């Protein structure tokens, strides 16, 4: 599935790498200064846990070519074990709350060992279908055994338990939970990145590209997939554990097929072929679900459209979109193509505006007809029933279409010329 530019190698290797990682650490440290509102912090913690979860998911899809349609099973079960452990800590067990995600991780790995043995017997579509089946079974079971799964209300707990860390950190206030998530996010991201540079990690890529050939260089492909699944289950369990601390409740929703579908969708939007793709996906998840969901009831429609457009026009996700520009920037020719990009963005925005107007007005007509036919649009009321706004929409989409055609032609000509020069310079 991954295609595109030549293998990107940073020169010199370690300087670029440590800049990136220290920058990442700095960002995590400084973020709460900008977003310190109660809910914003919770959301950032949620995005952090989803980053770990998506990275563990992409360890299967992006690194080893295994599409799992039931990955929430590992993070959900990890979360259940973690929250039960939290309750035990509350009853006096000596275990630091800060290491709770580890309990989730071990539980995730344990179920990786259990289910993995069955699922990794097959690969490709059969593997996807088995994980779908197991996902449905675990979800149905989660409602049937209230002792462990806590029934519909789920299992709740109090994260202020046991000895405070270093004497003063009780994880009561949200800011402390944020830094716990940040630390675990950094550790897990580093660990998963390092994994891609180990023999097993690289052979997993080989299994992704050509499972048959791997059999002939001494590796048993099922064993490779099995080990990768266990490790991925471990990190998914850690994400589950962190989620349990952040929300102090774990319910059957954590193991639902909806969760598995979410991580698949946003990892794909973020970009499967690149390691950091899922992290972009998690941030976009935050934007779509948070900001958009409160502005409009039709956020699901926008998300659907956005996703379908991504699948059709940019299957490599946003990460690939960014990394494709890399050779051009390296060749110093970005200035040439930049105006066409601006044109494309302008076209996109006008089309989007036309779409938003149309959808909001239709939504207003169908759902809120009772509350009169005027709709507030960023401050001024629009008379939905009359024709003028609809004419405006048609006009906007017309302009947008024209801009789009122009931008498309501009980009393709520039792109071919620059890439042509680059390829020629290489093979000379």
């Amino acid at each position, binding site marked *: 599935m*991954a295609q595109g530019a*030549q*293998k990107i*190698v940073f020169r010199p290797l370690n300087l670029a790498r440590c800049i990136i990682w220290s920058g990442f650490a700095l960002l995590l440290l400084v973020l709460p200064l900008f977003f310190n509102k109660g809910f914003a912090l919770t959301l950032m913690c949620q995005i952090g846990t989803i980053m770990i979860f998506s990275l563990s998911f992409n360890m299967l899809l992006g690194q080893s070519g295994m599409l799992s349609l039931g990955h929430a099973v590992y993070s959900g079960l990890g979360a259940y074990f973690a929250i039960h452990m939290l309750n035990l800590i509350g009853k006096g067990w000596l275990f630091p709350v800060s290491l709770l995600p580890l309990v989730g991780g071990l539980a995730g790995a344990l179920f990786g060992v259990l289910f993995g043995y069955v699922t990794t017997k097959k690969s490709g579509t059969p593997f996807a279908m088995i994980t779908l089946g197991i996902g449905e079974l675990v979800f149905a079971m989660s409602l049937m055994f209230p002792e462990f799964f806590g029934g519909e209300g789920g299992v709740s707990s109090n994260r202020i338990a046991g000895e405070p860390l270093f004497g003063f950190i009780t994880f009561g206030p949200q800011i402390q939970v944020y830094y716990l998530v940040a630390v675990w996010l950094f550790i897990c991201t580093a660990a998963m990145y*390092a*994994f891609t*540079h*180990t*023999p*097993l*990690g*690289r*052979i997993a*890529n*080989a299994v*992704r*590209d*050509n499972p*048959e*050939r*791997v*059999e*002939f*260089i*001494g*590796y*048993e492909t099922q*064993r*490779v997939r099995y*080990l990768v699944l266990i*490790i991925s289950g471990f990190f998914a369990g850690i994400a589950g554990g962190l989620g349990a601390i952040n929300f102090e409740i774990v319910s059957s929703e954590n193991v639902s097929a909806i969760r598995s579908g979410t991580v698949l969708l946003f990892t794909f939007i973020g970009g499967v072929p690149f390691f950091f793709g899922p992290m972009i996906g998690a941030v976009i998840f935050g934007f779509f679900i948070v900001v958009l969901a409160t502005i409009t009831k039709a956020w699901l429609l926008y998300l659907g459209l956005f996703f379908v457009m991504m699948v059709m026009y940019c299957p490599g996700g946003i990460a690939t979109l960014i990394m494709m520009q890399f050779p051009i920037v390296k060749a110093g020719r970005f200035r040439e193509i930049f105006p066409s990009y601006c044109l494309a963005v302008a076209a996109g925005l006008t089309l989007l505006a036309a779409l938003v107007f149309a959808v909001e007005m239709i939504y207003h007509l169908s759902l809120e007809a009772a509350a009169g036919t005027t709709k507030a649009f960023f401050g001024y009321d629009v008379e939905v029933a009359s024709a003028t706004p609809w004419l405006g929409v048609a006009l906007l989409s017309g302009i947008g279409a024209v801009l789009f055609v122009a931008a498309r032609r501009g980009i393709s000509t520039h792109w071919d010329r620059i890439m042509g020069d680059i390829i020629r310079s290489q093979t000379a």
Partner: protein
Amino acid sequence: MNAPAPMPVIAAALELRAVRKSFGVTEIIRGVDLAITKGERHAVIGPNGAGKSTLFNLISGRFGVSTGAILLNGGDLAGLKPFEINRKGLARSFQITNIFANLSVFENIRCAVLYPLGYKYSFWKALSTLKDANLRADEILELIGLKKRRDVKAGLLTYAEQRALEIGITIAGGAEVILLDEPTAGMSRSESDQAVELIRKVTVGKTLVMVEHDMSVVFSLADRISVLVYGEVIATDVPEKIRGNAAVQEAYLGTSLAEGAH
């Protein structure tokens, strides 16, 4: 240079005893007996559909034999999976290029050396610190002449370069017995001459079994030749004898061998 080597007395590196293989009703391999001594370069030729690739698939464990036995250095390979056979020291290449398209050329080779060097499924060692593996991989790259294409994605190589990489991956593991399935298929004259030199260079001291159509490649490389027709070996001998063998001419070459099939 390739004077007919006398039959050494030591055990055969690879031995096939009355091997038969049928898919459903049709029998493809009808009783093949073959013994290839250590260090020998053996070519298997025959018209299309004679069962050459099926023979390779049987030896490398991709299919199981219907009856008969295949022995590697005396050990029976019955029921073993391809990776188990590979670990016993047998490596094979593929007629249709079968490489890791999204990994760089260097990584393709390094993947092939990891298991033999004992790194197996380790996820705690960093690849950059594995001095022996990286050195070995660079050696192989030098050997197959892809040094300057080290960091290019394997999928972006030219056809001939990919065929060279295919051979590189096969020999990288250091297997004693090498199976090459039509290594020069689809190559131009100059490219195939280059490939022959490469094969000669990389199989020094190793046992080579090769399926090949290009007679010039066969005669410049093989110590002995087996001719497979309709699932049966009709002749196994040194190149000169094969060249003169009436049955081979009639069943396989059609025209007399003297004019050569360039």
